[in-house]
């Protein structure tokens, strides 16, 4: 029986991690770490989970310890946020290139400078091409559910890639919401026993990790890793189907909201999607065919499925909570335009940067964007392909 609780996103995800019963958790215990790991360390201290908790001196060390523990043959977790993820950056590639299924919730927060601690997607966007699977979550429930599913996806024998579960800093991580916990034994049965692959601690079958691969083979390994990425989407869907049977909650590669017959649409990640859905309802009440597309599996990005879901729209705005300096457009915009590139008939696309450093995304912002899309769809002309919203001019 599911248990209904009122908890923060941090507490919800800490519980999902406890229920998966990892062997090792290596974390940096000080800010930018969140309350999530404080909660998890309480579970360890209280004997509610058998995890070996390793407190290290930096996130670089945290991810390095995770790589070692995972290669040794354990189910391994960590968690981070903001500058912490930035400091892990070098080792993220080692975890994915070595095909180690480490699970890591990321509380999305802004990067310095200027110093800021609030909700923003710059941290995870900076790591989007590090070879990790990324699942993005609108609310505490989705973050909890995604964390549980992430173990199955990452540890799948055809995949064996590390996975990040992204959730908005403060808006989700620190806000109390109603959500449903699954029973411990149900989660344990769903996640299953950790299956080892070439564990270092199997002394009967000695293996070497991290060899030097010179130009005669490096490209073959990278090509092989790219191939694994193509298999992730199907595994995500299979795991979601199993999860729906267990929880009654359905997940896909992305969520579409009133999109099928829509003429204008928004693409938006995480918590701001909730606000946008309310405004879309208001537009629908006024007879305007608006819809929403919320990516869930953001890496590997399901380009074909995304293009199919969006190609019928007349005008589309991609909202990014991270900017690309010198790249002209936000990261999600770049992926969405790429997914629509093969189609002769496609929507007119515009990009808005919003909510940087925890700046509120308000219903008025969604309204402004949707009104502009109505105009773009009618006239076929665009004022500006990229603009910042909610910023003082």
């Amino acid at each position, binding site marked *: 029986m599911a248990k209904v609780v009122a908890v923060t996103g941090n507490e919800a995800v800490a519980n999902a991690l406890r229920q998966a019963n990892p062997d090792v958790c290596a974390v940096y215990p000080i800010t930018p770490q969140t309350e999530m790991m404080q909660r998890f360390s309480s579970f360890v201290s209280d004997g509610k989970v058998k995890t070996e908790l390793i407190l290290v001196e930096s996130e670089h060390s945290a991810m390095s310890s995770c790589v070692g523990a995972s290669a040794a043959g354990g189910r391994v977790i960590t968690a981070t946020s903001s500058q912490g993820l930035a400091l892990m950056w070098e080792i993220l590639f080692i975890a994915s290139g*070595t095909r180690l299924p480490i699970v890591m919730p990321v509380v999305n927060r802004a990067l310095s400078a200027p110093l800021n601690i609030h909700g923003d997607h710059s941290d995870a966007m900076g790591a989007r091409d590090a070879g990790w699977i990324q699942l993005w979550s609108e609310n505490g429930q989705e973050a909890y559910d995604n964390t549980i599913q992430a173990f199955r996806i990452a540890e799948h024998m055809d995949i064996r890639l590390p996975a990040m579960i992204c959730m908005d800093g403060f808006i989700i991580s620190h806000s109390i919401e109603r959500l449903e916990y699954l029973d411990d034994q149900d989660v344990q049965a769903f996640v299953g026993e950790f299956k080892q*692959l070439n564990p270092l601690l199997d002394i009967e*079958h000695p293996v*070497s*990790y991290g*060899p030097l691969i010179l130009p005669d083979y490096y490209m*073959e*390994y990278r090509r092989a890793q790219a*191939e694994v990425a193509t298999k992730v989407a199907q595994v995500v869907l299979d795991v979601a189907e199993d999860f729906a049977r267990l929880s009654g909650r359905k997940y896909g590669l992305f969520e579409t909201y009133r999109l099928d017959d829509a003429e204008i649409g928004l693409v938006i990640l995480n918590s701001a999607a909730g606000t946008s859905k309310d405004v879309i309802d208001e537009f629908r009440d006024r007879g305007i065919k608006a819809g929403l597309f919320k990516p869930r599996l953001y890496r590997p990005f399901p380009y074909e499925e995304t293009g199919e879901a969006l190609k019928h729209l007349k005008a589309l705005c991609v909202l990014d909570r991270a900017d690309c300096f010198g790249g002209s457009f936000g990261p999600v915009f770049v992926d969405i335009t790429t997914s629509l590139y093969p189609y002769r008939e496609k929507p007119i696309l515009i990009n808005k940067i919003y909510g940087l450093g925890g700046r509120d995304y308000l219903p008025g912002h969604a309204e402004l964007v949707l009104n502009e899309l109505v105009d773009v769809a009618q006239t076929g002309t665009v004022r500006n392909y990229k603009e910042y919203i909610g910023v003082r001019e």
Partner: protein
Amino acid sequence: MKLKSWKEVNPGAVITDAGNSREFKTGSWRSFKPVWIEENCIQCLFCWIYCPDMAIKVKDGKRADFDYDFCKGCGLCALECPGKKGKKAIIMVEEGK
């Protein structure tokens, strides 16, 4: 040795056949080659102890010739060799000469 395609490589570049460095012959790295002069050798086996690449063969407790498949030509053996009456039992000769 035929090079493998990307479909055949091990996930994560993990090496599962222990001791396969034997297949990786490093002798071609050498620019100077150690040469053993048997009449100056006192069988102290210092060269065998110091060689970082196990490239000095020992047979029945006696020094045998170099294993040139793995000797990188570092010259440690020639440096450590005490020789006999001031005459070295190992000298370094430039490759190609």
